[in-house]
């Protein structure tokens, strides 16, 4: 974990309520895709935990969904605004565990964010996972073109069928053969449905929770697991399939 200042480089509205933010600063604490940052906002007591979409040595890309007043203010901040950021939080995905497996990255809504940095690093390591992205509708979809440019087996599901298959990511995942290893991030009902698919035999699931500290001190975000209560912020946000209990 590192506490440091990041400056907003640019913000870009992707859909009605999802924005792309690029921040400049010291990203040395970010070591794995799926980690998150916790951002202090003026006038708000708690920081806002945001998954890292992608990072370079001196820039972070975040996808932020306007979930309340804090995030609404964050995405509208002017370029140049300095933010107090705790970076390098959480364990992140471990793509080495997916090596040699029939791997599918599964993202739902804003949960697609960490799959970007994950795809980039897996491709660098010679892994070519399939990708399944779920959205409510074409209007609420984002970043499809980013994934489409990578020549991966990319499949889309929308609830209204306006692009890709009509339905949920699970409807698409069912078409995959036996023994799928998933790397999944999305709303809890999606994670639970993916976790329960008969052809999903292993994988890593990234959870979200309301947090206070984000670094393991308050245990406000603990969830039950097979090994007892674990903190989403410090022991997760990524948990192995075997650890998860519903």
């Amino acid at each position, binding site marked *: *974990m590192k*506490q440091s200042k990041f400056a907003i480089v640019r913000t870009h509205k992707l859909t009605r309520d999802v924005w792309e933010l690029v921040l400049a600063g010291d990203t040395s604490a970010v070591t794995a895709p799926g980690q998150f940052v916790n951002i*202090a906002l003026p006038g*708000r*007591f*708690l*920081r806002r935990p945001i998954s890292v979409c992608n990072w370079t040595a001196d820039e972070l890309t975040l996808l932020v969904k306007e979930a309340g007043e*804090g995030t609404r203010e964050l995405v509208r901040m002017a370029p140049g605004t300095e933010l107090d950021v*705790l970076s390098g939080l959480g364990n992140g995905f471990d793509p080495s565990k997916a090596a040699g497996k029939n791997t599918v990255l599964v993202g739902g809504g804003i949960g697609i964010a960490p799959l970007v940095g994950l795809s980039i690093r897996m491709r660098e390591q010679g892994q070519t996972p399939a990708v399944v992205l779920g959205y409510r509708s074409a209007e609420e979809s984002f970043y499809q073109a980013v994934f489409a440019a990578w020549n991966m087996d990319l499949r889309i599901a929308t609830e209204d069928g306006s692009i890709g298959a009509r339905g949920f990511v699970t409807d698409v995942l069912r078409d995959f053969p036996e023994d799928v290893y998933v790397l999944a991030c999305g709303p809890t009902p999606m994670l639970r449905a993916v976790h329960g698919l008969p052809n999903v035999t292993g994988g890593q699931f990234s959870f979200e*929770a*309301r*947090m*206070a*500290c984000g*670094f*393991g*001190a*308050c*245990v*406000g*975000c*603990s*969830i*039950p697991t097979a090994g*007892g*209560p674990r903190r989403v912020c*410090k022991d997760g946000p990524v948990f192995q399939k075997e650890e998860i209990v519903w």
Partner: protein
Amino acid sequence: MVDLSVNLAGVTLKNPIIPASGAFGYGREFAEIYDLNILGSFSWKGTTAAPRSGNPQPRIAETPGGMLNAVGLQNPGMDAVIREEVPGIAKLFHGPVIANVGGFTLEEYAENCRKLEDVEQAAILEVNISCPNVHAGGKNFGCDPKAAAEVTRAVRTVTKKPVFMKLTPNVTDIAEIARACEAEGADGLCLINTLLGMRIDLNTRRPILANRTGGLSGPAVFPVAVRMVWDVYEAVKIPIIGCGGVDSAETAAEMMLAGAAAVEVGAANLIDPYACKTIIEDLPGVCKRLGVTKISELTGGAHHG
């Protein structure tokens, strides 16, 4: 040179700053980012006899100037803490530790304190009486002077260590509870615990917290804590650890002027992991500004003259 040391019922702390129970775990997370030995002490996570997994999610909600938590006393249980956490604490922190103890019956409080008798690091026992009494329909021990006195008596008889009762602010007259604890031999008091609160989600029209209610902490509670420390300082002679909304050397000094001998810092650690370090570094400057060479001279200073 300002003397920052303070005395709590015979235990000397090198400075009055103590991370509060529940905001600091058993110290490990903060030891990754700074040397815990700068601290006066720290109060470990409230520990009960049996392991507890706590309340369902969500457990955290933001409020104006603070937060609600409904963690529900999640902890590994006293035996596991003594076996697995205490040896680690001994390596990370060489000063006196405050062992926060929870309980749901008088017997549990006594048993937990008895188990700590041989734990050298546990210099002070901080007894959290904001717990529901399972033998009194779940009414908090700390809301009734008689029940608070009974817990004090139960732990007083089983330990030679200084006992500090941690008081809940969710009462009509906190001074009455404080006097009841003092009369049964409490060596000190710690106040305040969190204030009971609720937030409701406009979209779902339901309480945000799965537990519905949670404890309010953060700067929002600071003036309430200062007032209660003031009231209790007028009512008892035993030392008070002031707790509630402190987030700077200035607010720590204000808490001491109200009557606190030492100061616990809770929620501030969660939003700024270096909060206690910064407060300790800033204390000498604040003392100079206030014209004291010994910080202990601030305690109760607002009551005189």
